């Protein structure tokens, strides 16, 4: 299976939308850099992301959440948090990485 990474804010660019359109059901999606904003509760895209989480495993990079002042207790239910080492593990566990810029 592919590992999908997304690094753009969902409010600014269409990268996450394209990822959600093209990622196979059951895939893993890792949100890094400005894409971590997609993991938060209370945004206008909350229902879209919650819907997507029924089809995908969604991770967010801890260092990028912290940098942006995003508390883990305000993440959407089911978002998994990994550090850089966890990012490396996700890459190793999947066959190929697709980076959505």
């Amino acid at each position, binding site marked *: 299976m592919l590992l999908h990474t997304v*690094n753009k804010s969902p409010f600014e660019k269409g990268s996450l939308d394209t990822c959600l359109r093209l990622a196979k059901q059951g895939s893993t999606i890792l949100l*890094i*850099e*400005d894409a971590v904003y997609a993991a938060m509760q209370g945004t206008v895209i909350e229902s879209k992301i919650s819907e997507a989480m029924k089809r995908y495993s969604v991770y967010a990079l801890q*260092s990028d959440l912290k940098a942006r002042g995003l508390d883990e207790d305000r993440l959407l239910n089911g978002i998994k948090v990994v*550090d*850089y*080492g966890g*990012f*490396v*593990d996700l*890459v*190793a566990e999947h066959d*190929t*990485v697709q*980076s959505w*810029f």
Partner: protein
Amino acid sequence: MKFGIVVNEGPYTHQAADTAYQFTKAALEKGHEIVRVFFYHDGVNNGTRLTTPPQDERNIVKRWSELAQQHKLDLVVCVAAAQRRGIVDRDEAKRHGKDADNIAAGFRISGLGQLIEAGVLADRLVAFGD
């Protein structure tokens, strides 16, 4: 496991250059092998020794040079992308009649074939960009 790393953006401007470094460091700490770090597009700008970032900021170029020395990393700057952006080593400077070069320690300039080769040799190729 063998990783290849691709860096598509220059230092400071996009976080991609930082994330690539942090990922590479974490992979090495986990005992993985880095077969190559390939710098493409504005990524070639990571390879200039002429930067002087503010004292209270990370030194992105120096960080790569040091990691390369510690782990014998192969840091490859794409020659075609580098020519467009003004990253040159002594040979390139001579070839193009330039009076100075600016490549940083630990980086070398080579062709795009090195990117394809990294994709072939590595178990995983991971790209960081904008």
